[in-house]
Each structure stands twice: as structure tokens, then as C-alpha cells.
């Protein structure tokens, strides 16, 4: 189910030769092929899309901009906010690194290994996506909270933040790398082996470079999701200022205090990061498309 949520998978995957017949050149050239009915449909869709997404997001930018640069500085210079930003970015970075390594390993195991229960593992990977985030927090609390059967009490610590982020971002790298690994042609590896390459060399020179765009895409998505996470942290992190308070919680506190301007300023920074991720992904996708 994850491919839909993360999106990069079908793009990072090299286009299959027979799956998509190359569009004949004449498809690409006409600028506008809308029929009257389609034009009407597009109009209605755009009105809804504007009301739902474009206007509200512009309102965030407008509210953030209305205070000028001064407010940006005052919001970001606030010690508590700055602590939230560094904590969020730091933990998101750590979790993304963990995902890059573990996610690739899991994808490898799912594609190249055969063992009893593999299918189950494959399904469980999707659980963090399907689970409501508040439930995710509750779930983690049961093993890493006050009543932990393991005796690990991580609730309300920085570890809890990392844990929650790792939980909700688990599927991203796995699900972007998995399809690419599946379509990696065995004969390329065999060719390399026949040319005398060792396993290590094949891994380093053949497999990892082909996986790199997918890993990058998965990592970007995972990072974007991690810095914007809210629901799973509510119960687990305790939202302690300077210790476990993340940016989303900070934004919510501003909203609850009626300080929409500061909320918007901080939110616009998060929006900017989201935008950067989308652009970065687009570039990765286009590069892969050109290569494929």
C-alpha cells in the first residue's frame, strides 16, 4: 500500500520496456487538447483544489509574511522554538540515516532472501502507514513506556522522539528500494561476475549505484515526513519544552495561544522544506527517467 503514499516508487523504478509503449512523438506537441467537457471538469477541479489547498497554503504564507522579517527572526530566535527546530531536524536526520541502512537491508531481505514468514514481514512493513498516528504513539508507549515488559522507559525522552519518527517512516526507504531491486536484472550481475568482479565489487559498483536514486528518494520522503510528524509524538514524547518538543507541537501551541502569526511563520518554514523535498524528488525522478 505504501507505494501510493510515498509516490517515488513508480518513478524511481526504471520504466519497463513493454509496460509503457513509448508515446509517439505526436502526443507531446499539442499545447492544449482539452475538449469543452474536459475544460469544464478542469475548471471545477481547480476551484476545489484552490479552496482546499492553494488558498489555505497561501494564507499561511501571507500570515507569515504580514509580520515581515522581524517576526521571522523573533519567532526563530525564541530559545524554545530554536530548541524545537534543532531537536526535530536532528532526530529526523538520525532517523533518516537509520532508515537508509535498515530500510535497504529490509528491502534486500524481502527481495533476495527466502524464509518462512517473509510474506508476513512484507505486510507488517505497511502497518505504520495504515495505523493512525495517535495509535502509533500509544502502541510504542506499550513497549517503551512506563509499563514496558522490557524494562525500557524511554517515554518523554529524546529517544522517544526518535522511536516515534522511526516508526512512522519505516516504510519509505523499504518501499522505494524494493521495486527497483526487484527489477534489477540478474544478468547484469552475472555479467559482472563473469568479468571477474567479486561479490563486494558487484555490490559496490553495480547494485548500490542502481539503488542510489531510490534510496535518495526514500530518504527525502522519510526526512520530510519526520520533520512534520505530530500525532505519534503527542502521547509518547510528553512535549517537554527544550527537551522533547518538536516543531509541529510548537506550531500547535502557537495556534492554541491564538498566536496565528507566529504559527504561520514557523509553518511556512516547514512548508518551504516540504517544497524543497518535492523539487529534489522531481529532479531525482527526471534524472532516473533520462537514464532508464
Amino acid at each position: 500500500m505504501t507505494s501510493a503514499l510515498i509516490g517515488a516508487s513508480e518513478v524511481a523504478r526504471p520504466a519497463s520496456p513493454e509496460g509503457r509503449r513509448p508515446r509517439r512523438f505526436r502526443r507531446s506537441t499539442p499545447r492544449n487538447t482539452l475538449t469543452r467537457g474536459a475544460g469544464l471538469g478542469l475548471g471545477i477541479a481547480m476551484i476545489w483544489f484552490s479552496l482546499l489547498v492553494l488558498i489555505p497554503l497561501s494564507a499561511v504564507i501571507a500570515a507569515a509574511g504580514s509580520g515581515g522579517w522581524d517576526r521571522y527572526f523573533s519567532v526563530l530566535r525564541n530559545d524554545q522554538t530554536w530548541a524545537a527546530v534543532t531537536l526535530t531536524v536532528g532526530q529526523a536526520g538520525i532517523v533518516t540515516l537509520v532508515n537508509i541502512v535498515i530500510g535497504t537491508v529490509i528491502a534486500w531481505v524481502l527481495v533476495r532472501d527466502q524464509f518462512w514468514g517473509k510474506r508476513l514481514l512484507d505486510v507488517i512493513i505497511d502497518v505504520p502507514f495504515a495505523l493512525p498516528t495517535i495509535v502509533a504513539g500509544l502502541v510504542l508507549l506499550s513497549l517503551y513506556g512506563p509499563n514496558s515488559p522490557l524494562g525500557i522507559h524511554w517515554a518523554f525522552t529524546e529517544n522517544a522522539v526518535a522511536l516515534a519518527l522511526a516508526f512512522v517512516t519505516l516504510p519509505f526507504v523499504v518501499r522505494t528500494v524494493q521495486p527497483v531491486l526487484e527489477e534489477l536484472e540478474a544478468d547484469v550481475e552475472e555479467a559482472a561476475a563473469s568479468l571477474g568482479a567479486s561479490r563486494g565489487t558487484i555490490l559496490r559498483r553495480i547494485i548500490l549505484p542502481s539503488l542510489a536514486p531510490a534510496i535518495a528518494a526514500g530518504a527525502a520522503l522519510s526526512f520530510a515526513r519526520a520533520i512534520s510528524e505530530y500525532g505519534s509524538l503527542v502521547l509518547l514524547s510528553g512535549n517537554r519544552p527544550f527537551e522533547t518538543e518538536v516543531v509541529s507541537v510548537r506550531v500547535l501551541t502557537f495556534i492554541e495561544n491564538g498566536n496565528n502569526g507566529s504559527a504561520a511563520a514557523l509553518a511556512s518554514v516547514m512548508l518551504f522544506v516540504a517544497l524543497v523535498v518535492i523539487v529534489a524528488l522531481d529532479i531525482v525522478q527526471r534524472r532516473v527517467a533520462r537514464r532508464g
Partner: protein
Amino acid sequence: MSIEVTNVTKKFGDFVALDDVSVSLPTGQLTALLGPSGGGKSTLLRIIAGLDSADSGTINIEGTDATRLPAQKRGVGFVFQHYAVFKHMTVAKNVAFGLEIRKRPKDEVKRRVEELLELVHLSQFSHRLPSQLSGGQRQRMALARALAVEPKVLLLDEPFGALDAKVRKELRDWLRRLHDEVHVTTVFVTHDQEEALEVADEIVVINEGRVEQIGTPDQLYDEPANDFVMGFLGEVTQLGDVRLRPHDIEVAVTPGLAGAIEGTATRVLRVGFEVRVTVATSGGDVTVVLTRTHARQLELVEGTKVWLTAASGATTVPAMVAV
């Protein structure tokens, strides 16, 4: 005339797909649009069908101006290279589609579908899904589907292009026989000259968006309008200052005939029943094709000195300077 194409031009950006094309296709005939890939023949067919529109020019089908008519109202049947079968419907449902759209009575639809499946030899497959058919069977089904609505003209876009050589050959003969039975005006696009020569009553050669020549297979083969048509319809070699077909060259192992060109056989290759000989002459290499028997009579081996002349009645065109 059944289909009248007048001054049709079509551009895709800077690319001119059709450049002021005018063609008249007679009623009841089987016409081939022949030419190399990207030459504009498929575009012309799609414009006739209404699946693409021309930038300028008019299309007239059976006396009605169809230039502005949408595809639904042109009364044409269209068969696609990749079959375009409705994957989620059975064979019978596929064939019935056009009739059901037209809200024909149920029993009439059933009867007509049975007739058509009979015609294309697919009766026993009527309840299968297209995915259970071979490529050739799918294309026959697509043909039945197009014929079901009794189109005024039947258009086929590279109908056998995606099939392997043997099935192609079978379907080609079958299409010819089907046309003789059904007699609907048929136009098909192909880049395979053998296919066009074998099946069509008339051939329109299209290249780089222009009509190079229109004629019967014999006319095209025997009286090619230019170098391109000659080259496209079969192998060509150059002997002296004319271009002609390799099997239209007479080979002698003794000098004698006036104007014969002297050369040495440098390569003798047996391909099935024929022998292909490369002869080095002062004007360059010439390819000659002989029957095996003939080659054996001449005792032709590599190194043999030969004298070449154009056979009497051979089709020739003057060679272009740079060739």
C-alpha cells in the same frame, strides 16, 4: 470515390507529418498506404478515422464532408496495431460493443455476433477473455468488432505489425480472402512492401509527408515513378548509369554482348533457391541475383570473370549522381 482526401496538412510542432496530401480511394477496393516509419501514413489513416484532426484540408467519406465530424459519427471501422481489445470483456462482448452502443435489439446483436465470429473463425472462443487468445486471434477479433457496425470503410493501422512472420503471412492471405467476401472499402497501413504488393488492389506510397506514387502493385513495381519508390519496393543495385533490380541483370562468362560491363565475382552466396553474387566492376560493386541452376550452368565461383548487361524489359531508373 469512397474516400476523398484533399490538400491535407498536419504538423506536430515543427515536424511536418503530412504536407498537402491529396488522395482518392475508390469504393470496394483494398488499398495499402505504404511507406517507411514516420513517413505520415498512420497519421493520414488516423485523420481519415477522425482520431486526429488535420491542420488544413478536407476529408470526404462516401459523399459526405467528414472533416469536422467526430470519430463516433464517421461510420468507419478502425483496427489498431496493438489490437486495442477491451481486456475486461469476453470475445463476444467485444464484438457486440458497437451494436450495444447503438442499442440494437438483443437477438439481433446475438445473431450478428455469431455470424461475425464465424467469419473470423473464432466461434469456439466467444466466451473467452482476450488475454486467453493468441496475437493473431486477437487481431481477428478486433477485425470482427470493427466490421460489426457495418462501417462504410474499414481502416487498419499496421494490423499485422505486432505478429510474428508466420502468423503475419497467414493473416495477410486471410485478409485478402475476407475482403473478397465482404467487399467493404478497406485501407491498411504497412511498412512492409511485400505485404502491400501481395494484398492490395492499389498502393499509395507515402514518404516524408508526401505521396510519392499511386498505382496497382504491378504499376508500382514495373514503372516506379522515382528512385525512392523503386528502392522501397524491392532491392536495387546500380549497373553503369542505371539503377535496376539485381535479378534483372544478365550474366555471361564470355564477352560478346555490346555494352556489357566487365567485372569479377568477389563473393558468391547461396541463399535458399537463389544465389547472390557480388561483382566488382570499374564502377563499383554490383549485386546480381541468379537461380541456383543458372549459377551452376555458368560454373560461377569467386574469382570468375563476368560480363553484365541489363535484361531486356528490365525496370530501370537513371542513377542519381551521388549514389
